[in-house]
């Protein structure tokens, strides 16, 4: 048989069932591939064996990469931060447990922006991740490693986390499928917290069918996360080839009027809208008037929650400690040495927003804007089954090009943050290729599809139909050039 690294998850499972491939061969094909992208922080070859997986189950023998924000008992977990260097958690995240129980095997822990704060993976304390499409460009973030391994032939699938776009944006920039399901559908237990009212786990895969396969395993209520609710209906495998009878809205604020949208991204998006019409969808323009305030509300709410969640890194129970004579001095020295610049910036921003005298003006207003954005979506879903937008206003940008301007970096999440604030599901699928502003190589453009809470099966079905019509080349960029 051909190179097993070219197989999707569903194809690999089929080859195993047919006796053409063993789980060990599939795993070894990836484990033996050198990581030239800086995408892994831990792999079983260098640091002992991976956790034990079940012999049977829906994902038996499927190799999977795990973002380093998920705890796995006995394996290091850094969340991309120096403050957790050497930390080995005593328990396993529920999402990872569910994968292991379904028979998936852990290929490694993937690099990420420190505590999931970033849109380029340049905020990792352990080095940059390279985009397999162009090694001088970022893979997106914060789940940059999890996107790069799937696009770069280092894993057939992976999981990441999305707080304001951290699955969808890197999926778009790396030309893979990434999905953030409805808030609460997958347990957050054992997932290192950034902004608890927004954080959600989700899969990266090469096609839509594989996303459904992983989602079906990951979802479920968990007694260790009282905000988890699972999926009300089991996730169905997508089969749709057309969009007949589906009403699709195109919110102007997040498409043609989106801040910083590149002409190439716009062209690919417009072509995709035309494809949706050809597939039988009723497509019309719609409005989300408050969506343009999403970034403002998000950059109050997420840092506020982060400043509280990250108070636990104090040098007492785990991770780094910088010695000092007094307790207060130990806290300050430990936190100042352990956190990187972006994390410090967000802790400062969040602490300011929650501080006496500013709480209502900043935090209170942002929570009210969150209500307005959620209401805009509810109103749009009265008229439309789904909404589509570009996932990211730009294609993958060059390493270092936005690192000096935090606000420019935050704008990378312009199209993805509103869904996070509303808690609704959204997927990014590759829609085509475009050159960056000012010229350069052809790079992937993502299409974002969103729907009401718990409409995952409809989103996946529509994504499957669009994916079939677009005919994007899903094969990974294998190291050494050929794909």
């Amino acid at each position: 048989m051909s190179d097993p690294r070219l197989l999707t998850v569903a194809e690999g499972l089929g080859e195993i069932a047919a006796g053409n491939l063993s789980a060990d061969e599939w795993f070894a094909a990836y484990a033996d591939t050198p990581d030239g992208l800086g995408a892994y922080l831990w792999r079983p070859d260098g640091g002992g064996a991976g956790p034990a997986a079940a012999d049977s189950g829906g994902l038996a023998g499927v190799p999977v990469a795990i973002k380093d924000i998920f705890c796995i008992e006995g394996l290091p977990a850094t969340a991309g931060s120096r403050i957790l260097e050497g930390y080995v958690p005593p328990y396993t995240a529920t999402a990872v447990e569910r994968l292991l129980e379904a028979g998936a095997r852990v290929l490694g822990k993937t690099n990420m922006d420190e505590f999931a704060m970033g849109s380029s993976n340049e905020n990792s304390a352990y080095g940059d991740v390279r985009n397999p499409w162009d090694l001088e460009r970022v893979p997106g973030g914060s789940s940059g490693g999890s996107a790069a391994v799937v696009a770069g032939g280092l894993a057939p699938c992976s999981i990441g986390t999305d707080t304001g776009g951290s699955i969808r944006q890197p999926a778009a920039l790396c030309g893979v499928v990434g999905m953030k399901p409805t808030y609460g559908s997958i347990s957050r237990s054992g997932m290192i917290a950034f902004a608890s009212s927004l954080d959600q786990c989700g899969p990266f895969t090469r096609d839509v069918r594989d996303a459904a396969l992983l989602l079906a395993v990951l979802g479920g209520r968990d007694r260790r996360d009282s905000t988890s609710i699972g999926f009300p209906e089991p996730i169905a495998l997508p089969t749709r080839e057309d969009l007949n009878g589906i009403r699709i809205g195109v919110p102007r604020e997040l498409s043609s009027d989106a801040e910083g949208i590149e002409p190439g991204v716009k062209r690919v998006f417009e072509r995709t809208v035309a494809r949706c019409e050809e597939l039988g969808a009723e497509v019309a323009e719609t409005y989300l008037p408050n969506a343009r305030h999403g970034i403002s509300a998000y950059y109050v709410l997420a840092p506020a929650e982060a400043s509280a969640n990250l108070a636990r890194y104090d040098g007492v129970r785990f991770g780094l400690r910088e010695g000092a004579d007094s307790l207060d001095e130990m806290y300050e020295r430990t936190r100042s040495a352990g956190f990187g610049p972006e994390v410090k910036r967000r802790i400062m921003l969040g602490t300011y927003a929650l501080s006496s005298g500013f709480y209502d003006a900043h935090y209170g207003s942002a929570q009210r804007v969150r209500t307005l954005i959620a209401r805009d979506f509810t109103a749009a879903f009265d008229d439309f089954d789904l909404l589509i937008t570009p996932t990211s206003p730009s294609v993958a940008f060059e390493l270092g090009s936005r690192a000096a301007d935090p606000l420019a970096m935050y704008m990378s999440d312009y199209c993805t943050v509103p869904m996070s604030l509303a808690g609704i599901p959204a997927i990014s699928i590759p829609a085509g290729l475009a050159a960056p502003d000012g010229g350069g190589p052809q790079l992937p453009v993502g299409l974002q599809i969103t729907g009401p809470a718990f409409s995952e099966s409809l989103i996946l079905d529509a994504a499957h139909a669009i994916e079939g019509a677009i005919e994007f080349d899903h094969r990974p960029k294998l190291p050494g050039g050929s794909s």
Partner: protein
Amino acid sequence: MIDREQVLHIARLARLRLTEAEVERMSEELSGILDHVEAIGELDLEGVEPTSHVVALENVLRPDEPVPSLDRERALAGAPDSAAGSFRVPSPQA
């Protein structure tokens, strides 16, 4: 505008010790971000309920029966310093 004094005050609240260079940069960057964020101050938010959580949840209860949890030894295994089955820290009064 976030001035130097405010930066130092927030840093104290957040238990961060910033270098001179960091204080200066933080003042500039936080001011820039807050300028953008303050656009929402112009919206009419009168009577709009705040959203703290997007999913309507009911309280989750279970019978009050003890169940095994992380044992002491494993809970202390990751600690930078421990003694007599406890986390050890420098004196809070020093």
